[in-house]
């Protein structure tokens, strides 16, 4: 049985138009999955069904063998952390410190431990100097950093990032990705919704959504060999691969192409 198991799931906000249609998705423990897809394809909606915020119209979502129902959600949520797309709507605390602490408080982490983790994760996202600031007085990227720290500090087994790095500078993004990779190596399950193909390349597996359905799902090495899949779902291939594909003269560019492929996956 898979760690995350979505079966024949459909979802609708209004009762009329189905936003998610017949989703079947199994994610194993310790996998790193990137979810891609055009605007409005249903990525955020899917993420919300995973944490029991939205209830499927049909089908089931199960986490670690337990099907999500109103009764089981509290227990299930202890295993999942989610960073929402808009950092602004997830500030609970009055200060950055309180906000990072909020999730831990609910998990009954001891005060000493909390202080330690806050110090650690605030530093991790580069917000250690802002602990006493109010959320309203942070820049866009700083808000995203705090939102991320609040979820990392909960140390859940599954972490979902919904375009959580869209407003970070390249340096901060790289830094965070390094840390997520470390978490991944420690065995965490990571689901990353993103529009940045270079970011998605860090994952093992790509899930591409289109118009509420899963359009393609597979290991990145496989999917990247099919440019048509990308073209049909509003995506763009990584630059190095675009180069490799357009250098068609195998005899002259063989070596160059091999290198471009290799370096794309070496990330």
């Amino acid at each position: 049985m898979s760690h995350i198991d979505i079966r024949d799931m459909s979802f609708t906000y209004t009762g009329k138009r189905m936003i998610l249609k017949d989703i079947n998705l199994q994610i194993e423990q310790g996998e790193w999955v990137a979810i891609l897809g055009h605007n409005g394809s249903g990525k955020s909606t899917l993420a919300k069904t995973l944490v029991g915020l939205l209830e499927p119209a049909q089908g089931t979502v199960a986490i670690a063998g337990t099907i999500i129902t109103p009764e089981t959600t509290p227990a299930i949520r202890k295993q999942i952390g989610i960073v929402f797309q808009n950092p602004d709507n997830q500030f609970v605390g009055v200060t950055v410190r309180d906000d990072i602490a909020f999730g831990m408080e609910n998990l009954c982490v001891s005060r000493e431990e909390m202080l330690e983790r806050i110090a650690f994760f605030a530093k991790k996202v580069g917000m250690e100097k802002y602990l006493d600031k109010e959320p309203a007085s942070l820049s866009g990227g700083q808000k995203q950093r705090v939102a991320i720290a609040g979820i990392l500090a909960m140390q859940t087994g599954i972490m979902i990032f919904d375009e959580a790095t869209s407003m970070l500078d390249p340096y901060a993004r790289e830094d965070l990705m390094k840390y997520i990779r470390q978490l991944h190596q420690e065995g965490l399950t990571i689901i990353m919704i993103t529009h940045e193909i270079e970011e998605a390349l860090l994952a093992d597996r790509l899930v591409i959504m289109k118009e509420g359905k899963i359009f393609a799902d597979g290991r990145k090495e496989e999917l990247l060999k099919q440019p048509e899949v990308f073209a049909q779902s509003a995506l763009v291939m990584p630059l190095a691969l675009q180069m490799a594909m357009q250098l068609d003269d195998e005899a002259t560019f063989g070596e160059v192409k091999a290198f471009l492929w290799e370096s794309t996956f070496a990330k």
Partner: protein
Amino acid sequence: MGIHFREVSFHYPQNQLTFYQAIADITLQIAKQDEFICLIGRTGSGKSTLAQHMNALLLPTEGSVEIFGSLITNKRDKKINYNLLRKHVGLVFQFPEYQLFEETVEKDIMFGPLNFHVPPEQAKQIASETIKLVGLDETYLKRNPFNLSGGEKKRVSIAGILAFDPDILVLDEPTSGLDPQGKIQMMELFKAIQAKTGKSIIIITHDMDLVYEHASRVIVLHDGSLIYDESPEVLFRRGDLEQFHLQYPNTIKVLSALRDRFGLDLDIYQKNLPDALLAIKKAVAR
């Protein structure tokens, strides 16, 4: 004409005793026409704060900003028609949620034109034209802007500014949250607007590829100070960008990796894919 910053500093009040200096001593001139400026810098460097000075949403604590001939200082001047300034300079906010407030997408897009005295029927017409420009279809017009996906909201927020046809466009991270092809189309749209009308466009972004490919001028902020104001060609030849938490564009990164790996005589400073391919072909032929 255009926008002229003269030694501008801005302080956010922090508590009763202290303040936070978000931008410091910025002097900067933006022409009314034909500029394509990218404003970059690490998170919290003051980009959004600077942008909000361009249409007098924030008033400088020190110094002055001249916007289309009106001198903005730290006191609100009764003689200045601020609404007119907003017609000159259109600002798209970083968070679309900060910008949308009407019950339907249509009303939201019409809000600007109506304020600038466009007749209602014509404003409606404009709304249905602009929504298509930003890559959504007319069915979105009747929807509630708060029930859209992140990228859809972003598109509507851009449409709301394009709709009243400002003379200068200031866009705070207009491509964050857009899907890759949407990003390309949005940039094409801005380019087309500029080609047609010559309007200056200022874009805040963290996307170095976009900067390298499109900007004619890059302004770099760091801790509230303006450190570079130059062409992207000059900027990305600098060796110290990482120190300011910036990066090099992908083309440069990939090409330099190739050059180092194969010892090619390769000009790595290429702005887009076709040029990069040509350069590789040339280098390999050598």
